[in-house]
């Protein structure tokens, strides 16, 4: 899989080098190979592939990648095999797989894709991995060795063993041995079981499970022993994993709620449009990615400030046009902002589109951080978690250390007094609301990496956000943080045995009951001020 994903980029690189290579002789052997592949009936595809591999042609890898990625096509009337560089829209950009020369655009109607399916793709991955085993970078070798696991077949054993001789990196050796062991266990080799004893890799476990089920009693026994030893480790990892899930869900809640903690918690504006501000942030990410095609990473980074600004400006507009007229009427703000949220949603539907938009996840955010074969932390969530904490810290700083923070606290505690001390209350209001909205925008940027970017994005988070803020105690950022994380964790802990829906319901009921016990939330504002 990972290989397929990297494919297009590396393919283009490959071609780049190709162009530099002096033009090929008249009858390029590659041509025959490709045509052979393109025209092979599904039964003979494998031969065709092997033919390409055996040809030892340095372009082979590029071709196979293109093939595995549905980027090989035949021009219907000429029968020529071409590389599809861009396969979106009505006309596709194609290139010559032999020279890499760009052949311009051609209507997709005229092209006939060289068919592939998962079975072949699986084989292909094995072969690719095999090729990558010779790569210079040991990490690439290890990765491909991991991909080998469970893909080894009789054909691959010999080359792998050969490779094992040459290999100096211990990590890679272990992988290869494991990969071979899986094959051997499947062949009923008892010694191999030992090799897999410690491994947490699912493929290894699969192999052992099969062995345990086999009628060869010794093998079964050995396998069972190995499995038992694995089970223990698995339990621990599972626990760690669940905790991670909880925290990551929690941090999403925190992100979604933290902006509200300011507009609602600090300013007392029940901002029903909060969700839509999040949505704006997400759409900004999409927009920036549209402006910078091909650089999702950069686009994502840029959309952090952009998302903040867009949402903040929207916030200012809302504050100026509506909320300032509703001073001291919190529940009226609820109604007005509810209206605004309807408008914003429909605005996105009509201006952009009712459909969801694609937000690309940059390379460095996709995949997962592998702790061990059983425990790997998904990167996008890891980043979101970090992001949430940073945003929180930044807010804390602003509230505690800056003049704005001071003014905000002053104004919220005693407006009249603050005024008489020369604080421009209106200005503070604007800034506060802008800040809260901006943070909502940031949340949107983060969420665009986890879920849909569509008109309904906001609605899915607004209620949760309110729950978090109220549970944490209105007007208390720490409360929001703790509340978010704990609710997320509780939810994920419940999910395995209660199921997703029930877990959510239980959490809601828990909040309701909790508010009975502590009517002002986890961290209520204390003292005389809180009385009235």
């Amino acid at each position: 899989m990972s290989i397929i994903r990297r494919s297009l980029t590396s393919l283009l690189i490959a071609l780049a080098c190709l162009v530099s290579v002096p033009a090929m002789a008249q009858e390029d052997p590659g041509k025959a190979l490709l045509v052979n592949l393109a025209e092979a009936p599904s039964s003979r595809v494998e031969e065709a592939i092997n033919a390409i591999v055996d040809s030892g042609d340095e372009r082979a890898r590029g071709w196979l990648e293109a093939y595995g990625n549905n980027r090989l096509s035949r021009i219907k009337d000429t029968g020529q095999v071409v590389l599809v560089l861009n396969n979106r829209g009505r006309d596709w950009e194609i290139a010559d797989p032999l020279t890499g020369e760009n052949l311009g655009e051609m209507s997709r109607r005229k092209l006939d894709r060289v068919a592939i399916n998962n079975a072949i793709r699986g084989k292909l991955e094995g072969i690719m991995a095999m090729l990558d085993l010779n790569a210079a970078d040991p990490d690439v070798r290890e990765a491909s060795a991991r991909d080998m696991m469970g893909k080894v077949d009789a054909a691959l054993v010999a080359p792998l063993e050969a490779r094992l001789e040459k290999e100096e990196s211990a990590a890679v050796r272990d992988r290869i041995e494991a990969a071979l062991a899986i094959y051997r266990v499947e062949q009923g080799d008892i010694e191999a079981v030992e090799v897999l004893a410690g491994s947490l890799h699912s493929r290894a476990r699969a192999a052992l499970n099969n062995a345990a089920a086999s009628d060869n009693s010794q093998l079964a026994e050995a396998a069972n022993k190995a499995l038992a030893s694995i089970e223990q480790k698995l339990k621990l990892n599972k626990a760690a994993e669940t905790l991670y899930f909880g925290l990551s869900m929690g941090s999403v809640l925190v992100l979604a709620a933290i902006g509200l903690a300011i507009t609602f918690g600090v300013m007392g504006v029940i901002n029903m449009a909060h969700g839509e501000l999040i949505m704006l942030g997400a759409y900004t990410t999409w927009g920036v990615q549209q402006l910078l095609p091909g650089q999702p990473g950069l686009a994502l980074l840029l959309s952090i400030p952009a998302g903040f600004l867009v949402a903040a400006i929207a916030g200012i507009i809302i504050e100026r046009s509506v909320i300032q007229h509703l001073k001291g009427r919190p529940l009226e703000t609820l109604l007005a902002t509810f209206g605004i949220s309807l408008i914003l949603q429909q605005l996105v539907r009509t201006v952009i589109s009712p459909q969801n938009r694609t937000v690309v996840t940059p390379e460095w955010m996709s995949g997962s951080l592998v702790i061990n074969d059983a425990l790997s932390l998904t990167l996008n969530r890891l980043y979101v978690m970090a992001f949430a904490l940073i945003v929180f810290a930044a807010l804390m700083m602003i509230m505690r250390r800056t003049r704005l923070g001071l003014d905000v606290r002053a104004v919220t505690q005693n407006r009249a007094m603050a005024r008489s001390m020369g604080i421009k209350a209106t200005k503070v209001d604007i800034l506060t609301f802008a800040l809260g909205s901006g943070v909502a925008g940031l949340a949107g940027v983060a969420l665009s990496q986890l879920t849909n970017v569509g008109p309904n994005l906001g609605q899915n988070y607004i209620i949760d956000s309110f729950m978090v803020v109220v549970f944490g105690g209105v007007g208390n950022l720490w409360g929001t943080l703790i509340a978010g994380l704990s609710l997320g964790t509780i939810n994920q802990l419940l999910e395995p045995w209660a199921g997703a829906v029930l877990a959510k319901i239980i959490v809601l009921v828990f909040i309701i009951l909790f508010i009975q016990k502590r009517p002002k939330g986890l961290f209520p504002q204390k003292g005389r001020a809180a009385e009235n």
Partner: protein
Amino acid sequence: MSIKKHVKVGLSALALSVSMHSVAAEDPIKVGILHSLSGTMAISETVLKDTVEMLIEQQNEKGGVLGRELEAVVVDPASDWPLFAEKARELLAQEEVDVIFGNWTSVSRKSVLPVVEELNGLLFYPVQYEGEESSENVFYTGAAPNQQAIPAVNYLKDEIGVERWVLAGTDYVYPRTTNKILETYLKDQGVADEDIMVNYTPFGHSDWQNIVSDIKSFGSAGKKTAVVSTINGDANVPFYRELGNQGISASDIPVVAFSVGEQELSGIDTGPLVGHLAAWNYFMSVDTDANWDFIDAWIDYKGDDTVVTNDPMEAHYIGFNMYIEAVKKAGTTDVDEVKDAIIGVSVPNLTGGYATMMPNHHITKPVLIGEIQDNGQFSVVWETPSTVAGDAWSDFLPGSRDMIADWRKPMFCGTFNTATGSCGASSGEMAAEAE
């Protein structure tokens, strides 16, 4: 004082009804379009509204039918189920439309059904659904479970050699029924209980971490495992993202989806999904001239060459043409005449075959299995040798095993019980009422 206002409201309400009443143009054939343009379902349904409008435009360019123009009457039921019933009533009773194309969700169809039957209208329903229904007034141009689920499972079983099954779905009637059918079917095929894992999630479920990791461990038991996904709409993006990030590739655990088409994929970064599967009766990538022409027309209509087509759009395409044919055949738009005329009508579909309206108001469709490509398209890897006729009553559910629907006289019954040889109460009686 307040009271004056009341009068106003009251009267204007009447005024509304009156005004609506007075407009009942005789000449054009009125085509009601009942798709949500706002609310949660707008995501999927707006394109269907555009499709029908486009088809009407094209038909009018061909000079309409029976020398009469077609005219679209669009309303917005706003993803609000009771509103669907109300709007259907508005279309039939006030606007007096000749036919309705509409609905997506089962619940909206269920809410509209009594209205259409009572006012004896015509409804073309373009979405794959759970079956277990056959109404005199509804034409199901989407797939019934036997036109999607069963063939897909067969493919996984026979071609990929899957032995262990995860049935994951959103918790509503379509996945529930489909999974019930599949469970029974798989068990008949000798799959053991412990090799089937069923999981339901709420609408728009966004946190899939736990479930995906469960699927992962379920899949590491040794046998080849596949996920049969009836997960609906919005929940798919986070689901596939989680799959990708937890490193479940199509070659490890393929996911075959019944509700994910080009439209949904256009909202997902498909890079990580290459190789996962979907089962439909139409794919945009199908290489036939009819299809390419349809796509080009659609692109021109929307003025954007990145727009996609999908299965429900083809269903409307078929349904619309069937209606036109039926009207020509009957020589009138009279509902009862058209109902009789349309059975047996067959029109070309977009995948190079023909779709025929069966007596049970379902149509014949080919079943295609497609693999997701990195450009949000599907590449067809398998298809049924011939078209499959939609089965209103599943053979794998205890309640409906013996039931068939046939809307030709003399049987004229949506729930004919072959065991008792009698027509089950409901639809028969409805028909009676409708007369």
